[in-house]
């Protein structure tokens, strides 16, 4: 695969910066885009669909799970990893049902390494 | 105060005292604990707590002990939210039901390390009294919300439910439906057969209606006189109409004789149906007025029928009310 693009969707600037930093350390060749809400993410994806999307769950406006569900429908080729502090089984199950992978916050080099593995597997 | 006297004082307390060291081994265990576990300090000393009570593994109690030892955080565990966690009994030699427990967990610095103090209060009597009071008040509340004659909800129940359902429907923007149900020619029934028979008839109608609703779990209320009301959360006008029609048919086929009826030789009912997703200008009163208006139309059209309220639409000159049975 030529250099893939990862879209980072999180309302927290710090969270986006951390994902960006840890991903860059592991995969300096990846192209990175950012969105601060589900709506912005969907708009960006329509213009320029990325290979990978990392999604926060709790955001103002539409939730990450909803974004995931819509992407499964319209862009089944995009690989999605949910990255959230909401670690309940119900959320895990919802993520599984939507056919997306799941890593638990806090964002650390380890969680991001897991995320990268999930994207590439 | 010397250590021995301190230990004696602890033994006089009417609550359980346990102190765990950094490795969660038992260091202090007062008489109250011995009394309710049949385990002496000698038997438990230096044992890790989870080994002593394996039932705490992976519970909130264990989390809280760890939080106290490693983060110096205190916790409370209440009997309402936690099942009686520790195997403590009034008489541990013949254990029956566990004591209800209120547990406080606090970090205590000891020999340059963190220790964890666990205090346990017996809440059994309080919880029992609470349950008894709750049962009494529930039955009291049930009585004040029940119609004494027919056993279904009374007007107070209806008003209460209407308020709750309407608020809910408005905030969630969901439909709420109302059925106004009236027994046809009931005055004539009373006049001819007497009030006792009239009361009997009301009870029979209420029972048939309530039985007919069992599946959905909705409950009917007596709105007044021979009028009943039914609220259907989450139902749109079509669903509400079909439920109304089913109830109407149920009463007709129940075959309760009505010699004075102008409609049929048996008891029949007319039903007015209204339903909407509450818009800002619509109130609870709107829902009742629309159902009343539809009921009036059902009576006017010859009784023993259901009518759904439909807003007047000037464009195609439809009447205010549509008789869907036609």
């Amino acid at each position, binding site marked *: 695969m030529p250099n893939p693009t990862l879209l980072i969707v999180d309302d927290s600037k710090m969270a986006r910066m951390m994902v960006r930093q840890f991903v860059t350390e592991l995969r300096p060749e990846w192209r990175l885009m950012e969105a601060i809400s589900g709506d912005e993410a969907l708009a960006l994806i329509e213009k320029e669909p990325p290979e990978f999307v990392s999604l926060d769950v709790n955001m103002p406006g539409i939730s990450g799970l909803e974004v995931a569900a819509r992407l499964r429908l319209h862009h089944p080729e995009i690989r999605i990893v949910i990255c959230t502090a909401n670690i309940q089984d119900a959320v895990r199950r919802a993520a599984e049902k939507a056919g997306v992978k799941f890593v638990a916050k806090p964002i650390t080099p380890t969680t991001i390494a897991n995320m990268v593995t999930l994207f590439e597997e | 105060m010397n250590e021995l006297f301190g230990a004696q004082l602890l033994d006089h307390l009417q609550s359980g005292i346990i102190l765990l060291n950094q490795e969660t081994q038992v260091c202090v265990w007062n008489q109250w604990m011995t009394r309710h576990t049949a385990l002496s300090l000698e038997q438990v000393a230096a044992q890790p707590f989870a080994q002593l009570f394996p039932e705490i593994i992976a519970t909130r109690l264990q989390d809280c002990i760890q939080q106290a030892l490693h983060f110096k955080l205190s*916790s409370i565990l209440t009997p309402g939210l936690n099942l009686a966690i520790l195997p403590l009994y009034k008489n541990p030699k013949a254990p029956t039901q566990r004591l209800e427990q209120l547990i406080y967990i606090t970090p205590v610095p000891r020999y340059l390390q963190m220790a964890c103090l666990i205090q346990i209060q017996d809440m059994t009597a309080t919880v029992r009294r609470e349950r008894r009071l709750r049962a009494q008040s529930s039955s009291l509340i049930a009585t004040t919300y029940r119609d004494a004659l027919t056993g279904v909800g009374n007007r107070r129940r209806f008003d209460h439910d209407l308020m709750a359902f309407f608020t809910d429907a408005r905030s969630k923007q969901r439909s709420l439906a109302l059925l106004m149900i009236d027994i046809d020619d009931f005055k004539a029934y009373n006049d001819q057969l007497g009030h006792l028979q009239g009361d009997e008839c009301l009870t029979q109608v209420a029972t048939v209606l309530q039985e007919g609703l069992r599946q959905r779990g909705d409950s009917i209320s007596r709105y007044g006189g021979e009028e009943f009301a039914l609220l259907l959360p989450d139902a749109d006008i079509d669903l509400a109409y079909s439920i109304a029609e089913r109830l109407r048919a149920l009463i007709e086929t129940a075959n309760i004789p009505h010699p004075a009826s102008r409609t049929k030789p048996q008891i029949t009912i007319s039903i007015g149906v209204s339903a909407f997703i509450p818009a800002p200008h619509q109130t609870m009163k709107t829902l009742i007025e629309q159902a009343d208006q539809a009921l009036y139309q059902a009576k006017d059209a010859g009784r023993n029928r259901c009518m759904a309220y439909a807003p007047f639409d000037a464009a195609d000159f439809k009447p205010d009310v549509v008789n869907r049975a036609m």
Partner: protein
Amino acid sequence: MLEINELQGDALKELFNLGVGRAAHSLSMMVNDEVELSTPDILLVQASEVVTTLLGSEFSQLSMVTIDFTGTFNATAVLLFPERNALSIVSHMLDPHMLPEELSEFEQEAMCEIGNIILNACMSSLADEFQIEFEGGLPMHYFSDTDSLPLFGSQYLSHEQVVLLLQIHLTMRQEQVQGHLLFLLSVSSLNALLDCVDRYLVRLGIQ
């Protein structure tokens, strides 16, 4: 002086979300159902402005659980819900069929425990991520009206005190309730907290 910059606010919000995420996990195991908790907004205000800023006419009867934390910085953490909301949370946890009128002393303890879970989770996520230590006391519960909030009574307040104010949304059994998380701090404690945030951001290499 009285300011947190965008990145600091963002970091705190993220850390509190981590904390309430863990608390939601504990609560959901207790009720055997999904519980959602989130803290969408963070605000720094003068303690004396709290009552007007936040409470205003929105709700008058309050339920609050407080815990005192001491350590690298000292704070009184407060979980605050309109009384009706608090009662509906507790009745949902204890017995979904119970009417709020039926709640008693006994349920106040349950509210205490819920507050305990949420506030401890927030503070331990700060402690974890900042690699610092706190000591936390036992929770206390009050019912109060806004005018006589014991914590915000004038005798407790000086101009030296500030409040970190977070909205908290809790969804349990399809019902959504809103409350607030408050951290009452002295100005010097606030500065200590912000130092922790800055060091944390530096350690992560994003400041």
